[in-house]
């Protein structure tokens, strides 16, 4: 008994080293698997490369000083929307976020390092401020168009003796603008050679990562969203709704989805076609497996005691479905999403290869291979390197998915 008469549970309180939550367990198990851990690191690296592509491979210099005037062409390139390259604009937000969020977090840590408990809250706020800061350059972006100067060629005009200089990114080649260096093999200037329009293959591959990676993610995100909603409704309400949804899913599964995507994309005029159409179509054809899985999980979980107990506390059906049951059903969904992303990357490459991908000058890996096949005999580098990147990214997604599946399997836990 305590002083005020409250009964104290005399059971021994759990040890300080008590196991953490379910996801902590899964994380621990996941990183024990070296292959999966390396895969995730490579995925993150690929995403960083994709986000930072303009800073890694760009024909525009960071700083350009000529005739006493200093300009920053690359910065302008980042914030002025390039026509027809909406995905680039999106990724540039991410680019600024990857810079500003760590800085904001660092500040939050610096300011609150003595206040132990307050850190968690400040941490969230710092991310918010960082994201806000990332948007600012775009809000105040100059409205004029990009300059079309060919900086890699103009660089010879600079006179170092007059204090003129230029600072280029690591790969100082433009991925879009054609040059006269046609079909050159790998060399010092062009590490992985150039294509038939004289564009640097390495620069194009780095920028192509943006499309390939985002297609996988966005398409799978749409698929998860649609699949979870349908699966949850069918599994929770059962009865005629379940039957209707399941028959509908069986119909959708019967479509050969790749040809469906081809047909739909072919009907969109090439000028209007953008990568978002492809993502959307891939998303709305790829949700069936997830819906079935979510339905199964819901059928199983809806009968669990904790759902009944949440209902007895007055939770509405929507709240039960999405707050109480769904988090318990997300595990298998995430695993299948990892495999789904790999599949989506392949599908996108296939579409681009057939010429139905992102509209031309936008570089994508599939489109690069498609162009390279015409010069297969004289320029092997056009096919080998983009092909390798598709192979690597699909493989690591599959390995990561497998690792996640094993990590969530209690029987594999040692």
């Amino acid at each position, binding site marked *: 008994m305590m002083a005020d008469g409250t*009964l104290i549970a005399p059971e021994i309180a*759990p040890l300080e080293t*008590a196991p953490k939550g*379910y996801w902590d367990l899964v994380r621990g198990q996941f990183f024990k698997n070296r292959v999966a851990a390396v895969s995730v690191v490579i995925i993150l690296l690929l995403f960083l490369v994709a986000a930072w592509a303009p800073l890694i491979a760009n024909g525009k210099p960071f700083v350009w000083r000529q005739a006493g005037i200093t300009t920053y062409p690359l910065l302008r390139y980042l914030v002025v929307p390039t026509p027809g390259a909406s995905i680039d604009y999106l990724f540039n937000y991410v680019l600024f976020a990857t810079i500003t969020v760590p800085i904001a977090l660092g500040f939050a840590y610096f300011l609150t390092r003595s206040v132990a408990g307050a850190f968690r809250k400040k941490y969230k706020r710092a991310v918010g401020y960082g994201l806000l800061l990332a948007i600012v350059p775009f809000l105040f972006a100059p409205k004029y168009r990009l300059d079309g100067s060919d900086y890699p060629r103009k660089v010879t005009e600079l006179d170092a003796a007059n204090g003129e200089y230029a600072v280029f990114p690591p790969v100082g080649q433009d991925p879009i603008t054609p040059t006269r260096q046609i079909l050159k093999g790998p060399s010092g200037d062009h590490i992985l050679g150039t294509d038939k329009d004289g564009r640097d293959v390495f620069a194009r591959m780095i920028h192509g990562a943006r499309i390939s990676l985002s297609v996988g993610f966005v398409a799978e995100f749409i698929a998860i969203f649609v699949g979870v909603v349908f699966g949850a409704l069918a599994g929770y309400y059962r009865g005629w709704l379940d039957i209707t949804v399941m028959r509908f899913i069986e119909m959708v599964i019967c479509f050969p989805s790749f040809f469906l995507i081809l047909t739909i994309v072919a009907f969109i005029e090439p000028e209007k076609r953008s990568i978002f159409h492809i993502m959307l179509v891939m998303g709305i054809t790829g949700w069936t497996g997830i819906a079935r899985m979510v339905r199964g999980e819901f059928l199983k979980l809806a009968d669990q*005691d*904790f759902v009944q*107990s949440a209902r*007895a506390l*007055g939770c509405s059906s929507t709240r039960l479905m999405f707050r109480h049951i769904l*988090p318990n059903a997300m595990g298998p969904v995430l695993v299948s999403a990892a495999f789904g992303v790999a599949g989506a990357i392949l599908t996108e490459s296939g579409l681009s290869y057939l010429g139905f991908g992102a509209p031309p000058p936008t570089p994508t890996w599939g489109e690069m291979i498609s162009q390279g096949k015409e010069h297969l005999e004289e320029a092997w580098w056009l096919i080998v390197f983009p092909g390798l990147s598709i192979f690597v990214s699909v493989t690591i997604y599959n390995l990561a998915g497998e690792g996640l599946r094993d990590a969530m399997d209690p029987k594999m836990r040692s």
Partner: protein
Amino acid sequence: MSQSSDVLLDVQDLRTHFYTDAGIARAVDGISFDIKRGECVALVGESGCGKSVTSLSIMRLLAMPPARMPSGKILFKGRDLARLNENEMCSVRGKEIAMIFQEPQSALNPVFTVGDQIAEAFMTHHPQAKAKEAWDKTIEAMRQVGIPDSERRALDYPHQLSGGMKQRICIAMALICGPELIIADEPTTALDVTIQAQILELLRKLQKERHLSLLLITHDLGVVAEMAERTCVMYAGKIIEQSPTADVFRRPLHPYTQGLLRARPGIVGGTKHRLSVIPGMVPAATRFEDNCRFNPRCPLCTQECKDKEPALVDYGDHHRAACWHTKAEGIDAWRVEPIAKEQHA
């Protein structure tokens, strides 16, 4: 019976039937009882007698179909819960009537911390409340159910706590919105004996402090003797005996109740006695007939029992039983010892 304003919950002729492929299962078949404010009523019976279905029917937690309630009123503060729609029912559940379940292990959501779950129970009925307020209430509620170091324990996941602690969390969840009636469905069945005593004591203390009404559903007669002021004994979907608790133990009137009391393990007068059993089983709910449903197992069974259904008759002091052979002064239906029978055979 005292003034009706004192009565918090009045269940009248409640019937819950399940329409299954095997036929109509009349799991609860016309039961009536009431609970006054601040009173603890126990519902006792074997597995499958309809205790849990009764509690779920009061909370309207059964899936309909297959369940249906062809008749009956569940008057809670004069409002008939059986007539409320789902939205109205949502605001009753948790806020006015709360429930504690049998297995605390599975009654908590494994992916959220216990503090989150208690806070959510509060937020469900106070959507305008600030998160800080909900959290303070949570910590306070955890302290009241006797969880030491509640600020830290609130951040634990259910699997990090012991069974007793989890049941305390469930009680905190049930109490946080200040309900007037708690339905405890076998709250101690899944716990160790020592923890059982603590949980019961906690429940009784909270009940007295807050003047709560408690509907205690159990098959443990020890728990009943400890907690309840009145007891209803259920058999095969019917209440067959209803009385102040002390009376049930002192003067059981129904042969089934007598059998139950004899079937308790225990040491009487320092000597072990042979544990007696009630022969047979509860019939399947699809095969209930309109007679005395205990007749196949009853030592006093006559043709009358097989033909007609006995009504609950008051034998004085609010002690009521439904049996054709019961007399006010009491009878011992099980006088013939099963041991003697065995020797005979």
